[in-house]
Every structure is written in structure tokens, then in C-alpha cells.
């Protein structure tokens, strides 16, 4: 895993900053301070045991991060990629899952005074295989570079994005976006989730509905709920009751096999469970 060991302390610090503070404190309880200070302290140690620990931490805590998840139906011969664009495999459980780190460079423009710059991130991506599905999970990179500088900054572009990575790993033709409508609608019918906003297809239009004050469609608009049960769902936001999961909300585009976790979740594995429940019922 040289990509992590050979990275700068700042790169490793930014990588760790993608994770929730509570999880960092739990893993490194003796390091006190703010998130930035904890991440810097961990990142400053580039010894092999520390790199191994960081890699294990990424793998075990990725499920708590903000994520974009792409789910593909797979041909039986589809395998885990040996590599990904601009990155390398850093951990593998053969035939089950692989963890990758991708190097992303943001071209930025600083103001006052005007100056070009580059901001680099190590971007964790995990790919998982189930008997039926190929699951690509991207940790969401924060889009606010201002926090890394003490002056105004604009992002001009970046060297690699999710689309480019997905394009390469699906180039074999053995993968196609999974249709998650059945799994999502089953969880919705069972009362495990309710939607606050949805986009769906009617026979003559693409309709969308956003409930006032994030009320649930099933609870407060049963006519709409009934109508969308037979419709293909597009970008839809769901809420999960707090007593059922620390994943309070997630977005999905069921017709294109996409799930988005827009918040950190407190409990390790809760986003795994959401994905698993959708796929089990699909």
C-alpha cells in the first residue's frame, strides 16, 4: 500500500478528516485535541504498523462516512478490479471486497493575491461482491476547499471523478446498473422507511413531490404513496426512524442503482445494513 505510505502528511491528514470525529477518537483515544489535530498526529506517523492501522481503520469505518454507492447486477464472471484509475488496492478480502485509495487533484484558484494551486486528496473507494451484485462505494469528498486555506478559493476541476472510475470498472460489459425499485418499495411498504421527496415517472411526465417540513409521503399523502408504488422511482429521499438505525436519512435513485448516504452515521455497519436490506428484498 505505498500510496498511503508515500503520501504527504497533509494528504494522510485530509484522508482521515473524511471520517467522523467520534470514530477517530475511539481508534486513537490517547490523542487529544480537535479533529484536525488528531488527524495530523495520526498522519505524521508513517511507520508500517501505523499505516496498517490507518488502512484497517478506513476499511472498518468507511460505512460511517458520507457515501455514494453504485450497485450493479453482475455476470457470474465479474471479479474485483485489480486496480482503479489513479489509485491502487490497499486491502483485499479475496472474492468479497477490496479497498482502494485514489489520488485526486483539485485545481484551485486562490484570491488575494491571485494564485493557482493544487489540493490533493486520497480518496477511499471500496468495491464489494455479492452473488448477484457488484457494489462500488465512494466516500464523498467535501467540496469546501476554503477550509484548507485562510483566503478565498475556487475549485477549477479535478483529475478524476466517480464517473471516470465507474466507466473504467464497468468497461468489461459484465455489469449493468441494478434496478432497486423492488427492494426499496418493500422496505417502504414494511414501514422501515418513508420518503419525504420523490421523483417518479408517470405515463406522460416525470413528476416530483417534496413534502412540507419533511413529512413522510406514506403517512401524510397516502394517495401519492399508492400512485408511486407502480411507478419507476428516480431520485428519492428516505428517512429511517432514529430507533431503527443511526442512518437517519438516505437518498436513492432506484431505477439507476444508486444510493447516497448524506450524513455520517454513528454506528459502524448501519449503512451496510441499509444496503443489505434493500438488496435482500430486491
Amino acid at each position, binding site marked *: 500500500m505505498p500510496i498511503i505510505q508515500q503520501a504527504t502528511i497533509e494528504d494522510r491528514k485530509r484522508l482521515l478528516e473524511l471520517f467522523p470525529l467520534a470514530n477517530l477518537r475511539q481508534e486513537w483515544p490517547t490523542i487529544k485535541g480537535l479533529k484536525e489535530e488528531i488527524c495530523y498526529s495520526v498522519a505524521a506517523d508513517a511507520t508500517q504498523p501505523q499505516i496498517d492501522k490507518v488502512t484497517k481503520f478506513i476499511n472498518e469505518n468507511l460505512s460511517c462516512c458520507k457515501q*455514494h454507492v453504485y450497485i450493479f447486477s453482475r455476470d457470474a464472471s465479474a471479479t474485483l478490479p485489480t486496480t482503479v484509475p489513479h489509485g491502487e488496492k490497499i486491502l483485499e478480502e479475496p472474492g468479497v471486497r477490496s479497498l482502494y485509495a485514489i489520488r485526486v487533484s483539485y485545481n484551485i484558484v486562490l484570491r488575494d493575491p491571485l494564485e493557482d494551486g493544487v489540493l490533493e486528496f486520497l480518496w477511499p473507494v471500496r468495491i464489494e461482491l455479492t452473488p448477484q451484485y457488484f457494489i462500488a462505494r465512494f466516500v*464523498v469528498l467535501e*467540496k469546501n476547499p476554503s477550509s484548507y486555506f485562510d483566503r478565498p478559493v475556487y475549485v477549477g476541476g479535478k483529475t478524476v*471523478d*466517480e464517473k471516470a472510475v465507474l466507466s473504467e470498472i464497468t468497461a468489461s460489459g459484465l455489469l449493468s446498473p441494478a434496478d432497486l425499485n423492488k427492494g426499496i418499495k418493500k422496505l417502504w411498504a414494511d414501514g422501515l422507511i418513508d420518503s419525504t*421527496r420523490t421523483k417518479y415517472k408517470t405515463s406522460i411526465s416525470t413528476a416530483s413531490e*417534496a413534502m*412540507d*417540513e*419533511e413529512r413522510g409521503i406514506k403517512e401524510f399523502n397516502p394517495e401519492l404513496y399508492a400512485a408511486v408504488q407502480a411507478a419507476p422511482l428516480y*431520485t428519492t*429521499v428516505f428517512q429511517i426512524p432514529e430507533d431503527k438505525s443511526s442512518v437517519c*436519512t438516505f*437518498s436513492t435513485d432506484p431505477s439507476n442503482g*444508486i444510493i*447516497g448516504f*448524506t*450524513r455520517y452515521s454513528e454506528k459502524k455497519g448501519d449503512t451496510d445494513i441499509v444496503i443489505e436490506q434493500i438488496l435482500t428484498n430486491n
Partner: protein
Amino acid sequence: MLSNKFLQTISKLVPGGTLSAKELQLLSSLNPDKIYVENVRSILGVSHRSAVRILETAVRQGLFKRGIEIQCPDGTVAASADAEEKLPVTVHCWTEEEGHPKEVELPTESLTKTTFYRLNDESDSITFGQTA
């Protein structure tokens, strides 16, 4: 269903002093918990100013209560309250980033506010014609 008192009040305020059967039916079908000026304006075919006057009269008579709601940049209602000072300082909205929904916390003062009206649940104790 809107109260008879409200419908009678409107009758007194509309030009001509009477409501047609269709206007009565449409007004009666409004959600009593969320009535916008435009609902009343369009049903009665009056100006915005006249519709506000009708609704404010209903408030003064204790038939309706005024409310205010706050809208996210995409038009979604994020929160509502009886008065502006009772609105939360920030609200939760959704935006889109690279095709994915993203949650944002926005200051209420920066967002559009809309006045609405709702039936006063306690209005039965107020007799028709009495001002609150």
C-alpha cells in the same frame, strides 16, 4: 372544511356581497390548515390586495390565524410557525451536487418567507361579527 362563519365573512367582503355555488364549493374544499392568499384570490377572481383584506379580516374576527412558512431555495417548505420570531434560526434544505442530493443547513433569515392562514380551532367560541 372551512367554517360557515368564514364563508359568511367572505360573502360580506366580496364585490356583490354573495358567493356563487361554485365559489362556495371551492372555498369549502380548501385545506383549513394551510390557506394561501392565492387560493382565495383565484377562487374569488379578485385582486391580491382584496384577497389579503378578506383573510386579514378573518384573522381580526378570530376565525383564522396567520402563519408563516420558510422556503428552501428549491421551493420546499422547511418549517412553519405562528410568527416569524418562532421560526428556527436555521433550517434543513436539500441541494444537488454532481447529480446527488446533498443536505445543507441554511440560515432562516436568508430564505423566502410566505404568509399563510389557517382556521382558528377556537373560533367557535367567537360569535359571528365579533372582532377578536
